């Protein structure tokens, strides 16, 4: 399966233990430029552990983690960021009370002037924010509004646009559609695809096989900390993915149970 030149990120047989708890064992994942790799799994399947390893929050205990062919052990999130891996968490993306443009540049603010007159380049920040968002196809009413006034989907999109703007090569998205409605999810997926088209490698963490199948090129299924399946898009159908994700026969049972009262 791994015949691509050099994947941006490659995990091979990666394991993680918390004391005597096996959080993750023998998981492999490949992320290529211009592709979306989906990590699917139910709650507690080890999705967050995987994301934390890639984002540099945790170190893996076994297996190999390669970034552009080079084997690494990330020390902290800053390290991951410096290597071009940007992570957009579900809740950690933005500071709600701050304007969009301040959020966009938070932590990497451009300045002008020298000495005591060194100050934020507000004009540059405003126009760049607006342009970077437009390039991703996000047309914001007003970059001065607090980011908390945006909808959940819009906020995710700003966070994605931010990662793209600051030159991320790999974008890790932690359940970007989990708390969103159908329409909103569609919008976010559109921007995920836009990031892919900019040449980024994307890791999309989700428990929704429908969303994953819409945009994904590769699929890794986690179950109770181990890799239950690994597919490429042409080797699996949506039905098959959904069935595997929901646990096959368990879903059949559930369907029968749920169908009876309605009489259909």
């Amino acid at each position, binding site marked *: 399966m791994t015949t691509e030149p050099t994947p941006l990120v490659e995990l091979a047989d990666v394991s993680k233990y918390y004391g005597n708890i096996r959080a993750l064992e023998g998981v492999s994942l490949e992320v290529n430029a211009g592709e979306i790799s989906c990590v699917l799994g139910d709650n507690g399947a080890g999705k967050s552990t995987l994301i934390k390893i890639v984002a540099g929050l945790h170190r893996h205990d076994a297996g190999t983690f390669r970034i552009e062919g080079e084997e690494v052990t990330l020390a902290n*999130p800053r390290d991951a960021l410096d290597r071009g891996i940007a992570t957009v968490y579900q809740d*950690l993306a933005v*500071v709600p*009370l701050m304007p969009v443009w301040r959020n966009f540049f*938070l932590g*990497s603010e451009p300045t002008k002037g020298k000495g005591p007159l060194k*100050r*934020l380049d507000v004009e540059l920040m405003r*126009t760049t924010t607006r342009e970077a968002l437009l390039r991703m196809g996000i047309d914001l009413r007003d970059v001065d509004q607090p980011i908390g006034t*945006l909808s959940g989907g819009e906020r995710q999109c700003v966070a994605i646009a931010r990662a793209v703007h600051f030159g991320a090569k790999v974008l890790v998205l932690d359940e970007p559609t989990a708390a969103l409605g159908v329409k909103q999810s569609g919008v976010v997926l559109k921007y995920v695809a836009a990031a892919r088209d900019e040449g980024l490698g994307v890791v999309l963490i989700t428990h929704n096989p429908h969303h994953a199948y819409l945009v994904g090129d590769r699929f890794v299924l986690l179950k109770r900390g181990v890799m239950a399946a690994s597919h490429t898009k042409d080797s699996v159908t949506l039905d098959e993915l959904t069935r595997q994700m929901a646990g096959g026969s368990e879903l059949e049972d559930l369907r029968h149970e749920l169908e009876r009262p309605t009489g259909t």
Partner: protein
Amino acid sequence: MSSTAPPSNGVDHVDERLLRTTPLKKLLARPELGSVVGAIAVFAFFAVVADSFLKPSSLGTVLYAASTIGIMAVPVALLMIGGEFDLSAGVLVTSSALISSMFSYQMTANVWVGVGVSLLVTLAIGVFNGFMLTRTKLPSFIITLGTFLMLTGLNLGLTKLISGTVSTKSVADMEGFPSARKLFASEATIGGVEFKVTILWWLGLVALATWILLRTRFGNWIFAVGGGADAARAVGVPVHRTKIGLYMGVAFCAWISGQHLLFSFDVVQSGEGVGNELIYIIAAVIGGCLITGGYGSAIGSAVGALIFGMTSKGIVYAEWNPDWFKFFLGAMLLLATLLNAWIRKRVEATK
């Protein structure tokens, strides 16, 4: 709501969807607005009920009262925007004055040495507050309550131990006293009205704090650590250093206030300052700072301090019982907090 509209073609064009925000609503979103309305109301009220309130000489008195609170309300507001409290701010002013006075008197002949030592020690106490907070991750309420009590005890205990009484010896006849007094506690007469130098310090600090808050990276970080510390950390903001810096800001202003205290009265009472920390916090809150952090302004804290000055002196000019002052304060605080809560709801509810 979601942006499915076609991308606009120009950057400077006015988006038709912006019509929803009327200028009035934009004004309402300013953190200082509530306090400005309050200040006008308080001014109008005392202008009517107290005849001498509108006299030019009253202006100097009111501004002086406002400035002594305002100098401390500025850093306390910044700290509050950064999401933390400092309950030790009130007694820290007294500590700073005591250190300056006693070090000069016991160790040297020149007050400026004491002033310098006091600056270093006061800043160190600020660093201690910030360091303890970021290291232990305990609420700042607890940490600074501890510092508050320790400083209160140290102020009284050490002063008694060294001077034998509850107040320090006078430094009025020492070398450097006239120049130090000029810097920290002089007054100038402009158009027959006497203005204290603290008013200049106050306005200077407000301008500086506003500049820092709105136009520097550090200011951006202050808003961020108060509004969402985890998000800030995730994008690389040095959360701990920002908070320690804010506590040093409080300490620096406590040093200015402390030196003013010392050089306007020559002696320092060691039991002073208790309770002032709440006054600073109230001024900041009236000025629009959210008690939960992430929102507020330095100018707002100045307006809050001005309301304090007008109310405390206005009641005197109206020849009322000063007990009413506390009632006004309480009502003011309640109204301001309600207004802030309403603003926050407007900002956050439309998620």
